[in-house]
């Protein structure tokens, strides 16, 4: 098979596209690709994209035709476009716009081309939702099946345009402040406006549900708040933990006209249901026993919500997905930095929250200075000789812990702190003993799950104001919204090979920085141990986002020298 070497694309019949970034017109082609593909991996010189039914339907919705896509892929393809890929593109896009859901006098109607509807009727999984086949091109559906029906049709490969609309929900007067409560000028950045615009789609039935993907630090909370203000309706915000709840509330008060009385917190002991209510996924999925019902799920119907925001949507637990299927008449906004789900449920996010409406890649955000430019470095330190024997005899789990808690890491941290003196620095770790030890050694405050909420807020505040420059944090810091903005993060240890955690931790550094807009992420691992392997796995997501890790290895006698220097 002879290829055209100057062309950047290879299209596979399973709709995977490889883009050779080393070719001269790769940039131009990338601009086209993002219109109808998802980026899968951006490591190295060959980046992987994938067309899916959803990406193609999204493209069709924005006016791109099958001929356009086939034309581009043929023009820029190194090899002939596989017939299977071309046929699939034409078939999938050809189906777009042929089926729709509407509401007429309270009846949910399904309309479309008779031939296509006949095809659909052959699927037994569909029949149970059909109440009455009024005409060959119009069926009446059972009430309340809107979510699951769409989900099933999507699964079967038929896009349905949901024009059944949304209910407005309880009206809420809210607007974005031009000056924050702390009297700083405030306006949405262009891409934040664009993200809200893509989600809202002028209030039409075409918009109103979907996911916005922004790197950490690029202002996902702001986008959520702007969407809330745009819709001006009662809003339920679901987030991952109680720290986030507090921070959402703080941001809402700071940047919108909402008052304290209008914002409810629904977590821990607080069960406030107010026009804007912020709850945790945890509380929603709490139940007394395995068999008991999820009693807090009633929150979904406790007010007439006009919008539900799913923060960190990649963490959404399964019971909340199921609940979401029943509330398709409510607008839904998912926010995330990554659609990578360690549990492999990314598809459920697409089908139940909605398709991706906006995606800004990390490196693009960095190029636009919307986020800081982060240098990632892995520093390998040897295990002290006296620990080596212990390590050899230990069980697998203990081995990892011994490696993670390698005391040799502490002098490195001290050295790094000297190097970045004065810069707000987070030291993040998995094991409390180690964190206590380092906090003691550095005389730095320690923030763990044991610290009461009130004290945490105080610590955040002091860190933000610069009263303290080093904060030692446990894994509670992983998912908190806008955890103190830092310029340096030093990772002492992490949860095995979690790619998501690594991404979240780096995310803590991404808020744009004054000056040269730079930030530093260090991960310290023990050389010649299992920890280096886990470190590799953890770094995969960032590698795939186009980040590079520099690697430094400390010789065995390097620690003593460092320790001496630190005295």
């Amino acid at each position, binding site marked *: *098979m002879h290829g055209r070497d100057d062309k950047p694309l290879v299209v596979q019949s*399973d709709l*995977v596209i490889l883009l*050779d970034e080393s070719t001269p017109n790769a940039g131009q082609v990338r601009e086209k690709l993002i219109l109808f593909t998802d980026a899968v991996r951006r490591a*190295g010189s*060959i980046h992987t994209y994938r067309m899916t039914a959803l990406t193609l339907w999204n493209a069709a919705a924005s006016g791109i035709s099958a001929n356009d896509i086939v034309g581009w892929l043929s023009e820029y393809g190194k090899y002939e476009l596989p017939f299977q890929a071309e046929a699939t593109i034409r078939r999938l896009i050809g189906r777009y716009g042929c089926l729709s859901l509407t509401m007429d006098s309270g009846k949910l109607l399904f309309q479309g081309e008779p031939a296509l509807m006949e095809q659909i009727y052959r699927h037994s999984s569909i029949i149970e939702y059909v109440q009455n086949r009024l005409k060959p091109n119009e069926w009446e559906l059972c009430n309340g099946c809107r979510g699951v029906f769409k989900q099933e049709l999507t699964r079967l490969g038929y896009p349905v345009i949901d024009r059944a609309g949304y209910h407005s929900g309880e009206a809420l007067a809210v607007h974005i402040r031009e000056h924050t409560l702390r009297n700083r000028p405030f306006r949405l950045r262009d891409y934040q406006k664009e993200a809200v615009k893509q989600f809202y789609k002028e209030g039409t039935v075409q918009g109103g549900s979907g996911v916005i993907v922004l790197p950490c630090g690029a202002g996902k909370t702001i986008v959520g708040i702007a969407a809330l203000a745009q819709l001006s309706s009662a809003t339920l915000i679901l987030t991952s933990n109680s720290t986030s709840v507090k921070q959402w509330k703080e941001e809402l008060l700071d940047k919108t006209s909402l008052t304290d009385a209008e914002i409810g917190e629904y977590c821990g002991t607080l069960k406030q249901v107010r026009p804007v209510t912020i709850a945790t996924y945890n509380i929603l999925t709490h139940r007394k026993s395995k068999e008991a019902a999820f009693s807090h799920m009633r929150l979904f119907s406790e007010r007439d919500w006009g919008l539900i925001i799913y923060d960190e949507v990649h963490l959404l637990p399964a019971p909340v997905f199921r609940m979401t299927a029943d509330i398709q008449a409510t607008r839904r906004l998912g926010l995330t930095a990554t659609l990578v789900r360690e549990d492999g449920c990314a598809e459920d996010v697409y089908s139940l929250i909605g398709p991706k409406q906006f995606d800004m890649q990390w490196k693009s955000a960095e190029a636009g200075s919307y986020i800081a430019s982060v240098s990632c470095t892995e520093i390998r330190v040897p295990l002290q000789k006296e620990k080596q024997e212990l390590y050899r005899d230990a069980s697998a789990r203990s081995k990892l812990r011994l490696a993670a808690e390698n005391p040799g890491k502490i002098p490195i941290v001290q050295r790094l702190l000297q190097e970045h003196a004065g810069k707000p620095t987070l030291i993040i770790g998995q094991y409390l003993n180690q964190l206590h030890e380092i906090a003691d050694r550095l005389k730095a405050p320690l923030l763990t799950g044991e610290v009461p909420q009130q004290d945490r807020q105080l610590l955040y505040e002091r860190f933000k104001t610069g009263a303290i420059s080093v904060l030692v944090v446990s894994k509670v810091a992983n998912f908190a919204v806008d955890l103190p903005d830092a310029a340096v993060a030093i990772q002492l240890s992490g949860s095995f090979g979690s790619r998501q955690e690594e991404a979240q931790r780096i995310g803590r550094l991404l808020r744009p920085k004054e000056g040269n807009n730079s930030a530093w992420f260090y991960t310290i691992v023990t050389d010649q141990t299992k920890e280096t392997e886990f470190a590799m796995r953890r770094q995969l997501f960032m*590698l795939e986002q186009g980040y590079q*890790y520099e690697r430094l290895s400390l010789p065995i006698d390097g620690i003593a020298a460092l320790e001496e220097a630190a005295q």
Partner: protein
Amino acid sequence: MNIQQLLGKLSEQREERFILADVWRPAMQRGLSWREAALDREAVQSAAERLSANALLVLKTMLRSFAAVPAQEERLITAVRKHTGLSGAECHMGLVELEEAGILFSVRKVWGEKIFFIPVDCFSIWQQSLWPFQTDPLSSANQEKLINGKIRTHCRPLGRQLLSAFAALAQSGLELTKKGALSKKTVAKLVQVVELDEQCLHRFGLKWTHRELYPLKAAFILEAGAAIGLLQSGEGALKWKEDSLTSWLELDEGSRERQLMDWCLRLLLPAGGASSHAAAALIGLEARLWYSERDVEEWLKKTRVETFMNADLNVRWPAPCWYELFHSLGWMELVDCCGSDGRERLFRWKGSYSAHARGSAAVEVNPHYITIQPNGELIVEPSCPFTIRWELELLAERVSDEQVAVYQLKPVTVARALENGRTNKSIQSFLMEASGSDSLPSAFEALMEVWTSRACRYSFAEAVLLRCDSEQMAELVEKDSEMAPMLLAKLGASDFMVDKSQLDEIRRLLQQAGYPPRKGVQSYPETDHKCYPFVKHLAKASRNSALTFTPEIKSADTFIYETCPLHHFELTDGSASESMQPFLQLEQVPAIWTKQLRSYHHSTRKELIEQALEWQTPVQLRIEQELRSFVPERIEQQNGTWAVVGLLRDEQERQLIRLTPDMWEEMRLVIPGLADPT
């Protein structure tokens, strides 16, 4: 049996005689030898035009009645006589002509039974010459059907499927169990890595060895390996013929696929019965153009090419489906359509694998065969030679394989490579060479460093040497309080003698220390069936010769039995003397019987008819002043009178009729091959 196999049995003189036959004259003028002409479409076409009428009828009837299945002489003659009206002698004459030209061959079983066959690789060429299948590709108006049809999933070309299978086999080891078969685990792996749909093969009614242990797919893979000369039986294990393996891997993809297609057709055409006509028609179609199965069916009906098929060759149900087979072997794309006019299957040959594209292979020279990604992903260009892919199959996990292939290096695959004698350094230098680069991404190097840092740092030797891969590793062992007492002696800087009985304990301690030693125990010389063969990749010096690599005719190892095995039998010399024996007695009858039409007495008429029956020749009769050609079948006696039952060849209805001697005026014996007296 195909031409190549025949060449092993034919004398040089006989092969030279074939091309002297009149039918090959145009081929000879083109400078072709018989072995070339027999497989050359143009030569076969002109030979078909030059065959005598009798030979043509015999050949056509044979192909219609038996397709590619060898035919017993008696059944063949019966079929030809039934369908053509040729007399027995004319049939023999036709057969002699065909045998003398090297178009048909025969073997003789020990008890004398003769079996005629057409070399299996000539079958489709002759079929296409005798009944050309010319159909138009799908019109652009009908292209819409393709888009709305159900496209069968992509299958890799058979060569790539086999590469994965052979790689899996090499990784699992070739040892045979006590039953003489590969282990269940190995067979399971073999079957797993090949996407070929076994059902496609089952329809051919094949028979294979170790039926209770091998699924047909496994037998098919092993048969391929044996047939192309890569695998052979050894003591208690199969063995790689490493030179052949290297040569096979060095073939360009087009040549390899065509070679495999020839092998498949050799195996399956004789097993396909009547369906093989459809296969032969498909083989002649142009690559990359879409056709409809309906047109093939229509052509089969129109030419009635299968209509003489013996019932026993046609009884297999469901009949083999060549479309599905060719798709499953990665050579054909298939689309199932369902429209208002019913179901329809559309197909096209991929790339250069169809017979039509023979000789169009080109070798691409491109040193940049793979791209190495920082995360260990390897992107493999279509032009990447199999010698490199072979190594990749060991080093990495195949994620996808079509236009380009994607492999992913993983800790487990790297450990497997180490287990098979590769090292961090050798892997990295292989990858650099294959990627045409002098460095690797630093993140990738770091991954490799981690992945190769533990597994196989130690290995056991048969002499019970504990071998450490460096002085540093040796030091670690020496200083270990539990292991040190078990080290009997230090040999050189990094080896220790250890007590064999303590081998397991040391292994456990090393494992516990986080340095799992290499599995098993090395022995010298290495048992080659255990090791994944090293193949010299990019060995340009040998690539030219590789392009001409031809496998051995047939190894002694068989995994699938031929449907009609012929090679055990003696190939007859095909000379006329044997078939024409009766005519040697021509002088025993009055010359006038053959030379002149005469009105004989009824008793003499009977004598002539009896002689015709003995020689299986026709007679010429004048009936109601018209000259008719009559082939007598038998004489019937009734109430002291006699009659002859036979066939009047110029009658529209091909039915036996009964003639009493008073029903013709004059007669003579007709000797096939002798000039007409008029």
